[in-house]
């Protein structure tokens, strides 16, 4: 009996006979359609497809079938006997396909080995504990404790660490970009001995005064204070804008023509850095959106998903299973709670509705009031800090860090208060989460904006006009205002890192020790810490926005941020494994990935606004930096433009002209309409396929009913024939 006959003989026959155990086993569901529609990168499935297309009967399709082991073995033996009789090209093709598959899996393993922190991320997500499965039997209990310790922190926590890894790589590549085009040429030119050109502009010598180096005797602890606040020896260094020169090197040796324009390089590198980050974010957003669309709005199918796919079959140990069970129970409860609230809201009387809505409006104003109060505090702290920046010693350090302290305090306290407000507002749980997130995002990013706005007000002296008359900016307080802004951003970054480490050491470890070793009601109620994903991710977004804002004024900030995020990764990993209990409430990772990237994009836009403003509106410092002789930073581009050869200039003029841009606009509109039409067609075809599936199911049922109707007739028919 060949394989073909075997398979045909055992094909799926409708609903089957419930009492016949044999047919229950020897059933091959016609999942051919699902094999083709399904796009999982599963090597054996794709191999089966390839072999089907090549015509030779698939050896591996046997794996997909539901035959018992003995039958599969018999089938394989029969196939092996048939192999020599097959065409030689067939077996060569099989060998080639096998080789390609092996090669692909080897390459995948090799690349996976190089992926940054891959093993840690898998451990956190709870899949595939490779090291554990190799342990021999007698060490089994230790393995189980390890599993119950690491537990399964779930997709939400894993998505935080994936986001962090993405930011580390982004910052590192940006640093390489800046180093290659700005830092290294500057170092080379400075070491060769090229002096900066003084400003050609017609200004008084007052504006050209800049003495960042410390005067007189320097006390030893000043070193640490300077390290922390970016002043003193750190101010006049490659760290900040003020150190870079406006050197324009044009050499015309015999044969070679080397020219390098540092100011132009500085500006264009900053612009490309922003563009590169934007592209990375959008590409990542596209990937996340694709995942979200294929899983088709996971919120819609929450009940059936939880019931059928909620349980982790690899869960071991009674502690882990209890935890998993409570997790599933909690998820179901959240959904049930939403249903209950919906029913309750529908059943409210008009009077109740009015009171609820007015309460919500009132609480909204309270929340807005809290946030505005934070903003005012930040503005006041910034002005105070800038006024008292020359106080020496530890007090001076405290004053310089005052804005960072106020921002951090605000970001910590206000969400707590908003949580209490949310209890009164009684929104359904999903809406509560969204509202809390939005409030936190607004608080973090706009507080940074307020800080920058206050700085800008001081630099452009909105309060006292007389200081800015001489040099178009406040040269008395800020001899080099770009460096001051860079210093603020540097301080914010450093303070963020210090606070994270301090929290880890002073709050999280002691909390866990207290909870573990001292059991009273208070500690039971407080409990071990949970890893709260949203606030941690917002912290990352805030840090990255600070870096983007400061990159123009502090070129080494991406490098500092890379180091900071690497330290943060290990700190958070340690705190996750030692101090946190696996969360009861798992965070839905697919839709939240897009939300966090959207918030990152919002931070990027804020940084872009700051950059555009600095480049196009504020006058650069006369005394320092690569743009000291320009009216605006942007002016370097038109000037360099005029040195371009004729052909290039004409080409660029043509691109900017209307003759080019209007047809370009029209063509991009056409493409956009095409993609919109394509997307709507796909949506319609999905709906149509779904309806077809329904009809096919109904057809099947109808046919089965017809068969069952005709069955009592057939024995009589057979008897009639025999007669």
């Amino acid at each position, binding site marked *: 009996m060949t394989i073909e006959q075997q398979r045909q003989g055992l094909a799926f026959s409708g609903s089957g006979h419930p009492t016949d155990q044999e047919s229950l086993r020897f059933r091959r569901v016609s999942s051919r359609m699902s094999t083709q529609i399904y796009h999982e990168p599963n090597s054996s499935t794709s191999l089966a497809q390839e072999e089907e297309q090549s015509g030779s009967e698939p050896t591996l399709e046997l794996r997909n079938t539901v035959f018992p082991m003995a039958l599969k073995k018999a089938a394989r033996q029969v196939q092996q006997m048939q192999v020599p009789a097959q065409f030689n090209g067939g077996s060569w093709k099989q060998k080639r396909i096998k080789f390609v598959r092996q090669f692909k899996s080897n390459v995948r393993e090799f690349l996976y080995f190089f992926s940054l922190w891959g093993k840690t991320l898998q451990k956190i997500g709870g899949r595939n504990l490779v090291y554990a499965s190799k342990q021999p039997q007698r060490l089994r209990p230790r393995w189980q404790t390890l599993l119950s310790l690491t537990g399964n922190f779930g997709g939400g926590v894993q998505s935080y660490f994936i986001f962090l890894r993405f930011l580390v790589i982004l910052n590192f590549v940006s640093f390489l970009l800046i180093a290659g085009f700005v830092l290294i040429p500057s170092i080379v030119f400075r070491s060769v001995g090229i002096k900066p050109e003084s400003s050609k502009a017609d200004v008084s010598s007052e504006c050209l005064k800049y003495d960042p180096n410390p005067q007189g005797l320097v006390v030893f602890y000043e070193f640490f204070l300077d390290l922390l606040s970016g002043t003193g020896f750190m101010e006049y260094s490659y760290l900040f804008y003020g150190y870079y020169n406006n050197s324009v090197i044009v050499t015309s040796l015999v044969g070679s023509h080397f020219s390098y324009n540092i100011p132009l390089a500085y500006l264009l590198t900053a612009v490309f850095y922003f563009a590169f980050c934007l592209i990375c974010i959008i590409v990542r957003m596209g990937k996340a959106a694709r995942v979200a669309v294929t899983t088709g709005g996971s919120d819609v199918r*929450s009940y059936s998903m939880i019931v059928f796919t909620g349980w982790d079959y690899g869960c071991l140990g009674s502690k882990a299973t209890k935890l998993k069970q409570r997790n599933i129970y909690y998820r179901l409860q959240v959904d049930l709670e939403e249903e209950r609230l919906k029913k309750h809201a529908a059943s409210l009387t008009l009077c109740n509705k009015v009171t609820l809505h007015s309460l919500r409006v009132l609480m909204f104003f309270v929340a807005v009031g809290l946030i505005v109060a934070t903003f005012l505090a930040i503005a006041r702290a910034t002005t105070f800090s800038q006024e008292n920046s020359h106080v020496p010693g530890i007090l001076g350090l405290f004053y310089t860090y005052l804005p960072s302290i106020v921002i951090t305090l605000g970001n910590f306290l206000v969400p707590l208060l908003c949580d209490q407000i949310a209890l009164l507002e009684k929104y359904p749980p999903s809406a509560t989460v969204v509202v809390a997130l939005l409030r936190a995002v607004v608080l973090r990013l706009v507080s940074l904006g307020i800080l920058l706005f206050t700085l800008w007000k001081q630099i452009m002296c909105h309060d006292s006009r007389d200081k800015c008359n001489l040099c178009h900016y406040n040269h008395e307080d800020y001899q080099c205002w770009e460096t001051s802004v860079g210093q603020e951003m540097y301080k914010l970054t450093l303070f963020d890192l210090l606070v994270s480490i301090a929290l880890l050491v002073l709050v999280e470890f002691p909390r866990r020790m207290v909870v573990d070793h001292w059991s009273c009601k208070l500690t039971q109620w407080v409990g071990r810490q949970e890893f709260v994903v949203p606030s941690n991710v917002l912290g990352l977004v805030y840090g990255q926005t600070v870096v983007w804002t400061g990159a123009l004024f502090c070129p080494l900030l991406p490098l500092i941020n890379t180091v900071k995020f690497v330290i943060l990764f290990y700190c958070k990993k340690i705190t996750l494994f030692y101090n946190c209990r696996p969360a009861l409430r798992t965070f839905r990772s697919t839709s939240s990935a897009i939300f966090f990237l959207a918030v990152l994009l919002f931070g990027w836009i804020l940084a872009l606004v700051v950059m555009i403003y600095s480049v196009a509106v504020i006058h650069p410092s006369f005394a320092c930096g690569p743009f000291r002789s320009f009216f605006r930073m942007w002016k370097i581009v038109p000037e360099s433009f005029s040195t371009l050869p004729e052909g290039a200039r004409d080409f660029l003029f043509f691109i900017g002209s209307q003759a080019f841009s209007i047809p370009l606009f029209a063509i991009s509109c056409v493409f956009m309409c095409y993609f919109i039409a394509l997307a709507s067609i796909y949506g319609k075809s999905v709906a149509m396929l779904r309806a077809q599936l329904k009809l096919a199911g109904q057809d099947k049922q109808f046919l089965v009913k017809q068969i069952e109707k005709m069955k009592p007739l057939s024995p009589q028919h057979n008897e009639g024939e025999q007669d």
Partner: protein
Amino acid sequence: MRQILHGRYRELAPHLVPLDYTNNPDIKVPMALIVTMPELKENPFRDRIVETFSEDGQGNMSFNDFVDMFSALCETSPRELKTIYAFKIYDFNRDNFICKEDLQKTLNKLTKGELTPEEVRLVCDKAIEEADLDADNKLSFADFENMISKAPDFLSNFHVRI
């Protein structure tokens, strides 16, 4: 791998299972012993898993059934196979449909009776409403497969490590 599985199979019932399997003896280990395995012990669906993979449907597994079970539940097993077996496991009354009673039993096993009967009924109604495409108030294999294809963590959850 087969050796490892043979070792595990043997330690379940050393008096029943011979060391030497070259003659393919017809030995079946009863269900009560198989569910004591640490990988299955805490699983709420252990009875159904063993019944599904056993040839006689009562849970007495021969060694081939045993290997079958772990190869279907392993990491490299294809998605279609896992979906087929998941459907069989959740189909308690083996009528090739997951009806409301099957779902209620699944849910009770999952939450170990912590939900009230009304909540159980509500969740089952909602689940069937979400997944049932051909509007017959029970889930056929096509409905189940369609719902599973949208689940991002089905493959990683439906996996027993040995």
